[in-house]
C-alpha cells in the first residue's frame, strides 16, 4: 500500500466541473425555461468534461513525480458525517484520493467520456432539431460523469457508494431517455431495480466490514485505513444460518468479499444480475458507449480491485468470482452469436468481456483486470460509436438483417469499426491481444478449483469473441446489400464532430496495448525490459500481488500461440460462414432449431425471474401490502376510522352538552359544585 498523502487541491475539480455543468443545465432547463442554443449546451458539457480530463492529466503528472511508495494525492473538502467521541469517534469525509489505480480509472473515464460527449453532439442533433431534449441529455451525461468520478475518486466506502448510487440513477435516466416509448422506461426501471439488488449486497458488505473493524477498535471506512488495519480482522469468523453451503462458520473476509462482489455483479452485469444490460440498449447509443461499455459497468471491477487486499486474503471468495466471471463470459459470447440487433451483440459482448475481467480478479491478477478494463473501454466505446454511426446512417434501423454491403457507402465508419473488431478479437499486435493474453495467462497459472477447465473455457470464449465480432462486421459491411432501396442512396458517413472521436479511439485501440507489454517478451522486441509491463509496475504499490511471476518462457509462448490460434479460428470461421458461403448460417440454424431457440430466448432467464420473483412481489405488494394494510388498515381503520369515531362521538354525544338551555347548564354547575365540596370535605 502507499503511505503518506500529498495535498492536491485541483482534485476536487475533477468531479465538480461536471456537477456544476449539470446543475447549470438543470437551472437553464427548469428555471429559465427558454431553449438554449446547442452551441451553449455543448460548450458547457464538453467544456466541463474537458476540464475534468485536464485536471486528471495534471493530477497524473503530479503523481508520477512522486516516488513509487508514496504515490497518493489527497484533497479533503469537508467532514460529511461525524459521530462518536474519543476512541469511538467515526467520521466519513468528503475527501478524494488519487493513487495509481484511481489515475487509470479517472483518465479512462474522463478521456473516453470527453470523446463521447463530442460524439453525442452530432448524434443527438436531430433530437435538438425536434426539440426533444438535447439539453436534458447533456445534463444527465454530466451528472453521470460527476457520479462516476466521485465513485472513483472517493477516499472512503460511503462516499464511493454515493457515486455508485448516482451512476445507477443516471443510468436509469439515460436508458429511459426517450421515455415516450414505454418500453424504454421499463428498461430503465429494470436496470435500476436489478442494480438495487446489488446495492443491497454492497451495503451489507460495507456494514459487515465496518462492524469487524469497529470490534477490532478501528471504526473507519476510509480505504487507506481499512487497508492499514486489515490484518487485524483477516482471521475473524462469522456464523451464518445452517442451510447455507459450506458450514455455519465462515471467514468474515470471505463473506464481505462475496457481498461486495454481488454488488459488483449488479453494476457489471454478471450472472445472475446480468439481465438488465441487453435491455439497456434502449437508450441512445452514446449512452450505451459511455455507461454500458466504458464506465459504469466497470465500477464493479474497480470496487473489487480497490479492495484487492481483501480478496487476496479471501481465496474462497476469489474462486467464486473467477468462476462466475468465466461463466458469464461464456454465456455472453454464446448469446451474442444469435443476436440480430447491432447493439445487443455489443451488449452481450460487454457482459462477456467483463466476465474476463472478473476472472482476472478471481485469479489474483488485479493489474491484468485493470489493463483489460482500460483497453476494453477504448475498444468497446469505439465499437459502440461506430455502431451509432451505422444506426444513424440507416435512419435508426438496428437489425443487421436489414444491412449489408455498407462498406462502400460509409467507409470511415467501416474502417473504425473494423479496427475495433480486430482489436477486441485479440489479434496481434492490437490492444485487445495484450490485455486478453494477460488474463488467459493468469487463468492458466492460478490453480483454481476445477483445474484447467477455467482456462479452457476462457480460451473457447476468446475464440467465440472473434467469431461473433466478425459475424457482426461481415453482416453489416460486406456481402450483398439487404438495405431498403430508398435508404441505399442516402447513406452517408457521419460529420466531422462524430468522426474525430472515432479516430481517437481507434488510435487508442491500436496502441494502448503497449502499456502492458508483457515482461516475458521484453528482450524479444526492441522494448527495454525495465520499462516493459509498465502498467502493472505502475499499479503495483496499490494492488495486492500484482507482480506476477513470469512463467517459464516456453509455457508463455505456448499460451500466446493458443490465444492467437483461437482468435484466428474465430475470424476464419466467421469469414467462411458469412462471406464465403453465406447460405450455411441459415442451414445451421435450421438443423439446430431447438438450440437456436433456447439461445434466442436467453435461456428464458427473464421469464424465470418474472415468474419466481417479480410476480410474487407485485402480487404481495398489491394485494397484501397495498390493499389490505395500507388502504384497509392504515387508511381505513387507523386514519379514517379515528376521524369517524371522533365525529360520531361529537355528533351524537358531545353535541348535546351545549344545548343552550340555561337550566341544564345550571344543573351541571350544581353537580360540579357539590362534587368539589364533597371532595374538599373528605
Amino acid at each position, binding site marked *: 500500500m502507499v503511505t503518506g498523502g500529498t495535498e492536491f487541491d485541483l482534485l476536487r475539480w475533477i468531479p465538480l466541473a461536471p456537477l456544476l455543468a449539470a446543475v447549470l443545465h438543470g437551472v437553464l432547463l427548469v428555471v429559465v425555461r427558454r431553449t438554449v442554443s446547442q452551441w451553449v449546451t455543448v460548450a458547457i458539457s464538453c467544456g466541463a468534461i474537458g476540464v475534468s480530463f485536464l485536471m486528471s492529466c495534471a493530477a497524473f503528472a503530479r503523481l508520477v513525480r512522486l516516488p513509487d511508495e508514496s504515490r497518493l494525492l489527497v484533497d479533503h473538502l469537508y467532514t460529511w458525517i461525524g459521530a462518536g467521541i474519543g476512541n469511538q469517534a467515526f467520521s466519513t469525509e468528503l475527501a478524494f484520493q488519487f493513487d495509481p489505480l484511481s489515475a487509470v480509472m479517472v483518465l479512462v473515464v474522463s478521456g473516453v467520456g470527453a470523446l463521447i460527449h463530442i460524439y453525442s453532439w452530432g448524434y443527438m442533433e436531430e433530437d435538438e432539431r425536434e426539440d426533444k431534449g438535447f439539453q436534458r441529455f447533456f445534463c444527465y451525461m454530466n451528472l453521470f460523469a460527476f457520479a462516476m468520478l466521485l465513485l472513483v475518486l472517493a477516499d472512503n466506502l460511503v462516499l464511493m457508494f454515493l457515486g455508485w448510487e448516482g451512476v445507477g440513477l443516471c443510468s436509469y435516466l439515460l436508458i429511459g431517455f426517450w421515455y415516450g416509448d414505454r418500453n424504454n422506461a421499463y428498461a430503465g426501471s429494470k436496470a435500476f431495480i436489478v442494480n438495487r439488488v446489488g446495492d443491497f449486497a454492497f451495503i451489507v458488505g460495507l456494514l459487515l466490514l465496518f462492524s469487524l473493524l469497529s470490534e477490532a477498535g478501528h471504526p473507519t471506512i476510509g480505504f487507506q485505513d481499512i487497508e492499514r488495519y486489515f490484518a487485524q480482522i483477516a482471521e475473524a469468523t462469522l456464523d451464518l444460518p445452517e442451510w447455507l453451503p459450506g458450514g455455519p462458520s465462515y471467514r468474515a473476509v470471505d463473506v464481505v468479499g462475496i457481498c461486495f462482489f454481488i454488488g459488483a455483479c449488479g453494476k457489471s452485469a454478471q450472472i445472475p444480475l446480468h439481465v438488465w444490460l441487453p435491455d439497456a440498449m434502449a437508450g441512445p447509443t452514446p449512452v450505451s458507449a459511455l455507461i454500458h461499455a466504458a464506465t459504469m459497468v466497470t465500477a464493479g471491477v474497480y470496487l473489487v480491485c480497490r479492495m484487492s487486499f481483501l480478496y487476496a486474503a479471501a481465496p474462497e471468495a476469489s474462486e467464486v468470482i473467477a468462476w462466475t466471471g468465466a461463466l458469464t463470459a461464456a454465456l455472453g459470447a454464446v448469446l451474442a452469436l444469435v443476436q440480430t440487433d447491432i447493439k445487443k451483440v455489443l451488449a452481450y459482448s460487454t457482459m462477456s468481456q467483463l466476465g474476463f475481467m472478473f476472472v482476472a480478479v478471481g485469479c489474483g491478477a488485479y493489474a491484468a483486470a485493470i489493463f483489460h478494463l482500460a483497453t476494453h473501454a477504448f475498444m468497446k466505446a469505439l465499437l459502440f460509436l461506430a455502431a451509432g454511426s451505422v444506426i444513424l446512417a440507416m435512419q435508426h434501423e438496428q437489425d443487421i438483417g436489414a444491412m449489408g454491403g455498407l462498406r462502400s457507402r460509409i467507409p470511415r465508419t467501416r474502417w473504425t469499426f473494423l479496427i475495433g473488431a480486430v482489436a477486441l478479437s485479440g489479434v496481434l499486435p492490437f490492444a485487445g491481444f495484450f490485455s486478453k493474453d494477460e488474463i488467459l495467462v493468469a487463468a492458466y497459472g492460478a490453480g483454481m478449483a476445477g483445474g484447467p477447465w477455467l482456462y479452457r473455457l476462457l480460451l473457447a470464449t476468446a475464440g467465440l469473441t472473434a467469431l461473433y465480432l466478425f459475424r457482426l462486421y461481415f453482416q453489416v459491411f460486406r456481402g450483398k446489400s439487404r438495405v431498403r432501396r430508398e435508404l441505399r442512396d442516402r447513406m452517408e458517413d457521419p460529420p466531422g464532430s462524430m468522426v474525430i472521436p472515432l479516430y481517437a479511439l481507434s488510435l487508442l485501440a491500436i496502441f494502448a496495448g503497449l502499456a502492458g507489454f508483457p515482461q516475458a517478451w521484453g528482450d524479444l522486441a526492441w522494448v527495454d525490459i525495465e520499462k516493459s509491463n509498465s502498467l502493472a509496475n505502475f499499479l503495483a504499490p496499490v494492488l495486492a500481488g500484482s507482480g506476477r511471476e513470469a512463467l517459464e518462457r516456453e509455457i508463455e509462448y505456448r499460451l500466446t500461440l493458443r490465444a492467437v490460434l483461437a482468435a484466428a479460428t474465430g475470424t476464419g470461421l466467421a469469414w467462411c460462414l458469412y462471406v464465403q458461403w453465406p447460405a450455411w448460417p441459415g442451414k445451421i440454424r435450421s438443423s439446430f432449431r431447438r438450440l437456436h431457440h433456447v439461445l434466442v430466448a436467453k435461456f428464458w432467464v427473464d421469464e424465470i425471474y418474472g415468474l419466481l420473483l417479480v410476480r410474487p412481489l407485485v402480487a404481495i405488494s398489491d394485494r397484501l401490502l397495498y390493499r389490505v394494510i395500507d388502504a384497509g388498515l392504515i387508511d381505513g381503520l387507523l386514519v379514517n376510522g379515528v376521524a369517524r369515531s371522533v365525529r360520531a362521538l361529537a355528533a351524537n354525544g358531545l353535541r*348535546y352538552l351545549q*344545548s343552550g*338551555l340555561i*337550566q*341544564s347548564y*345550571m*344543573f351541571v354547575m*350544581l*353537580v360540579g359544585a*357539590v362534587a368539589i365540596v*364533597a371532595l374538599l*370535605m373528605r
Partner: protein
Amino acid sequence: MNFPTLLFHAFALLAVAGAVGTVANLRNTVAAAMSLVLTMVSLAGIYVLLGAHIIAVFQIMVYGGAIVVLFLFAVMLRGDESEPLPRGRMRLVKAASVLVAVCVMAGFARILVGFPEPPAAPTDFGRARTVGIALYSDYVLLVEMVSLVLLAAIVGALVLAKRNTD
C-alpha cells in the same frame, strides 16, 4: 322545650312553607312573591331569636320591602302567563336536579348533627352600634366597594330597562 325553641320551630315551619310556596306555586307569580315575603319575615324572626337584631331589621327592610317589591313591579310590567311543562331532554335533567338537591340536603343533615350548645351571646352581639362601628372601622373598604357595586347596579338597571328609541 322552652319558649324560644318553640318560637324558632314555628318560624322555621313558616319559612319552609313560604319557600315551598314560592317554588311550587302553580297559581300565579304574585302568589309566589307573597310566599317569598312570608319566608323573609320568618327568617327575620329567627335572626332576632339568634340575637342579630340589626340583621333582622335589614332583612325585612331590604328583602321584604325592596326586593320583593321589585319582583312585583316586574310581574306587573310583564304580565303573568302560565308555564309550559318541561319537555324532552329537560324532563330528565329536572328530575335529576331534584334528586341531586335532595341528596345535598340529606348530606348536610348527616354532617351537621351534633353541634354544641351556643354560649351566651355577648351583650352587644347584634346591636346596631357594634355592627356599625365594625363596618366603618374594620370593614370600611368593603363598604366602599359595595357602594360602587350598587352604583353599577343602578346604572346597569337603568340602561337595561330603557327602551331603544330608534
